[in-house]
């Protein structure tokens, strides 16, 4: 507790107390009346006093009550205020800036939980630096924003203005709430703040004050050291309801690539089922609305863990011949509008461009021509290598390169369907030839095996291999893998370690389906149906073509991230820490649009927690409650108490007379 104006209280006490005591010492001025005898009066009255101007100060309940009233009033004039917790020492303020802190369920004039948390933190800083008459020590405060990547907004400082400015500078991000990394940041700062004390027997105590809604995903990883104490300041309402569009996906019509169908997964964290209307927006314009509200089930506890209600919906197919930005979003916002929509960037459809390595390969040419590609170019392995060496983009200009037997010596970056001995292929190790292999197992759900039956496949001879780079066997033979995929950073491979002519596969219908699936699967890496949304907090790699080019990423909310391309012509712009669409542009010229998705369904849960459970410590940190405001004025209570005491004194006085 501190006193804002103790001098006034002391002056009031000092100036009123002597007159009050004097009133009890000095006798009253009375009217003089002569009576026949005072014999009876002397014994009948209780307030008779000796005939002297002063009397000994006697104990009186009234005097006691008046002294109490006087003390209460003097204390009220001194304006005491209660503090939230200890004052001096080191305090690290953790302000949650995650997605859930954008919820608009706080009282007062604060637009969001983050703003309320910032205000509470600012008040706490003021309280820690309140000074006061009795407590002059101020705290050393560090400000850390967590949520997504934690950031030190201000190191340990004794200046309240600096700490307050650091709090005010915190901007919302849409990442997940992770506290453990933020604590590690503070510990690092403590260790480097005074290296001489690193080996001290008793580390300095530090108070972690967390301003959050309590929905922290990594609480299990938080363990406090003996010198650390955690204070939780809960922000937000416990009964807030939120639903979100967790993800969106697209399916292209195989008959008409211009037609796409959007799929969306919705989640609901409320305790009661609800309904929501969903619309599909293309390039900012509503394009489709679901004919009826979507019934969303309530959240339920499964195995002791609360799980959100989930539902998947699909929109009617729409034509996107030119591509576009597709977003599924609720028509009515809830307490957390930030996750009410999910977007995807859909590029325009593109025809297949294929290359076939090896001349007069009738079987593969026939198979590829059946796919009706826009182009099918044939090269020898040497020609392909030479062209690729001359033009780095040459090999990647094909949606798929199909080869049988003869592979380029150094496989340029690109997408390949390889039949034959894969010796020398990057990411593949071979172990000699095998004979007489039959299929013993498949990854039946893999896209390459759609409508492909390999039960009757018999391979006369093949090469034993192991895919070492992000590989996966999709057909397992009795003597080793018969088909595998490898998805590397620069190469995507489908490897069949035998010549089809050494098996009975070309005579089976599944062979054509396999080739078709493999080509389509490889092509999806070059011309995906959608551009995969970025994880929130990631940075975007932009090929500017030349150094010194300014690249900016502009979020739909106005947030801007800028970068300049380096010597290699690449620019890394970011972090893209807001959900939604980012326009990547160079000097005002749009380059592309990038969609950023949310951190996951857990961050959409916004019912504020009243306590922080720390499983690793077996403890629960209760919220500091109203004391988040730092100081609370006590003078109204003192004034109320003094009035009550006056009433008691009056009652006592009437009881006496």
């Amino acid at each position: 507790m501190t006193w804002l104006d103790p001098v006034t209280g002391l002056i009031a006490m000092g100036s009123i107390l002597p007159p009050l005591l004097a009133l009890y010492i000095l006798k009253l001025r009375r009217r003089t009346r002569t009576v026949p005898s005072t014999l009876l009066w002397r014994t009948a009255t209780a307030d008779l006093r000796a005939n002297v101007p002063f009397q000994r100060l006697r104990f009186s309940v009234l005097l006691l009550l008046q002294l109490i009233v006087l003390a209460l009033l003097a204390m009220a004039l001194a304006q005491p205020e209660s503090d939230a917790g200890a004052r001096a020492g080191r305090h690290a303020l953790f302000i949650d800036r995650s997605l859930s802190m954008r919820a608009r369920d706080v009282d007062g004039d604060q637009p969001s939980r983050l703003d309320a948390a910032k205000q509470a933190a600012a008040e706490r800083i003021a309280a820690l630096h309140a000074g006061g008459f009795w407590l002059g020590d101020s705290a050393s405060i560090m400000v850390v924003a967590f949520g997504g990547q934690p950031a030190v907004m201000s190191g340990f400082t004794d200046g309240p203005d600096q700490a307050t400015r650091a709090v005010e500078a915190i901007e919302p991000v849409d990442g997940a709430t992770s506290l453990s990394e933020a604590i590690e940041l503070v510990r690092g700062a403590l260790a480097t703040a005074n290296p001489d004390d690193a080996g001290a027997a008793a580390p300095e105590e530090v108070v972690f004050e967390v301003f959050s809604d309590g929905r922290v995903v990594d609480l299990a990883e938080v363990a406090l050291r003996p010198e650390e104490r955690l204070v939780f300041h809960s922000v937000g309402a416990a009964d807030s309801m939120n639903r979100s569009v967790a993800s969106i996906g697209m399916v292209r019509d195989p008959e008409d690539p211009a037609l796409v169908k959007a799929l969306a997964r919705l989640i609901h964290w409320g305790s009661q089922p609800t309904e929501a209307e969903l619309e599909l927006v293309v390039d900012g314009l509503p394009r489709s609305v679901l004919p009826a509200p979507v019934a969303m089930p309530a959240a339920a506890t499964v195995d002791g863990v609360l799980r959100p209600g989930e539902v998947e919906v699909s929109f009617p197919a729409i034509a996107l011949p030119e591509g576009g930005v597709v977003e599924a979003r609720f028509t009515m916002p809830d307490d957390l509008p930030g996750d009410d929509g999910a977007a995807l960037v859909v590029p325009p459809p593109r025809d297949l461009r294929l290359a076939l390595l090896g001349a007069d390969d009738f079987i593969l040419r026939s198979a590829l021509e059946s796919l009706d590609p826009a182009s099918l170019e044939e090269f020898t392995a040497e020609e392909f290598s030479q062209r690729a060496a001359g033009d780095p983009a040459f090999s990647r200009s094909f949606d798929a390169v199909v080869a049988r037997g003869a592979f380029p010596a150094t496989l340029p970056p690109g997408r390949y369907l390889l039949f034959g001995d894969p010796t020398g292929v990057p990411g593949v190790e071979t172990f000699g030839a095998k004979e007489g292999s039959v299929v013993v197992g498949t990854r039946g759900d893999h896209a390459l095996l759609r409508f492909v039956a390999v039960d009757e496949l018999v391979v006369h001879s093949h090469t034993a291999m192991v895919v070492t780079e992000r590989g996966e066997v999709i057909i397992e033979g009795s003597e080793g893998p018969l088909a595998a995929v490898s998805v590397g950073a620069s190469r995507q491979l489908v490897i069949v370690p035998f010549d089809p002519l050494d098996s009975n596969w070309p005579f089976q219908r599944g062979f054509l389906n396999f080739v078709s699936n493999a080509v389509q699967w490889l092509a999806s890496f070059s011309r995906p149906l959608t551009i995969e949304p970025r994880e929130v907090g990631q940075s975007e790699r932009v090929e500017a073509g030349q150094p010194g080019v300014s690249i900016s990423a502009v979020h739909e909310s106005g947030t801007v991230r800028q970068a300049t391309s380096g010597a290699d012509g690449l620019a890394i712009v970011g972090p893209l820490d807001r959900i939604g669409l980012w326009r990547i542009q160079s000097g005002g010229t749009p380059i592309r649009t990038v969609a950023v998705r949310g951190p996951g369904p857990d961050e959409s849960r916004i019912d504020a927690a009243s306590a922080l459970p720390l499983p690793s410590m077996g403890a629960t940190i209760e919220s500091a409650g109203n004391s988040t405001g730092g100081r609370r004025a006590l003078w109204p209570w003192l004034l109320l108490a003094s009035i009550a005491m006056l009433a008691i004194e009056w009652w006592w006085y009437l009881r006496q007379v």
Partner: protein
Amino acid sequence: MMKRVDELLDSRLMARLDTLDVVSRKVFMGKVQGERRSRRRGQSVEFADFRPYVPGDDLRFVDWNIYGRLDRLFLKLFLEEEDLSLLFAIDCSTSMDAGTPRKFDFVRRLAMSLGYIGLVNQSRVGCFAFGGDRVERLTGLRGRRRVRELGEWLLSRESGGAFDFSKAMRTMALGGQGRGVLVVLSDFMLADGADAGLRAIAGRGFDVFAIQCLAPEEVEPASVLTGDVRLIDSELGTPVEVSMTSRVIEAYAERLRQHTEALRDASVRRGVTFMQVRTDMPMDDLLLTYLRRRGLLK
């Protein structure tokens, strides 16, 4: 301030008092023949008893008829008729100079009225005034023609000083005024109580009537005393500071009741008749009704 005798006793009341007489519960031996029976055998016409003749008796009282029948000498005894001694002890202290009506005026009017009754009935009337250290007396009054003298003496008395009741009663007991009815008129605000004074007068053959005269404001002080007041004792001059609250008024009333009860108990123990009267009580009612009912007058 009364200046005339008729202010003490007006003619209308005087006429009504002619029918009254002072009653004594005891039979006294007076100094001269009066109109009351005496325990002393005397020469009145009322026969009392016989006793054998002894030499030296007055032969005029020998009953010769009995001598004729019994041949023995008996002496006839007759009741002696004596006068009644009616004494007043009047408190003339400063405390009696208070009240509305003034207590001192009231006791003088009462003494005048009772004295008139005594004089009319051939009683021997005497007055003693006590105030401070002084004792003033007027004795030996008898007969209607002394009424004016009594009135003028009462008018000339002044209040002042304290009233030492014990000393006053000792003075009365040793004053040689003979036996009779003693009426003490005072407010009896006695710090030491009345017991010592009553003990001094008891056994001296007086038929004592103690009449406590209180002013209305002494019985009901709330009518004149309000707020925070400083009360000064009129006799002693000692101050007492009092806040006139209902609780204090109640306490005073209770204390007055206790004081009166103590006086009454002390009086009963000494065979004294105690009465309390208010000074605003009409004299007619007091004399014709109240005192008759209490046995002082008939």
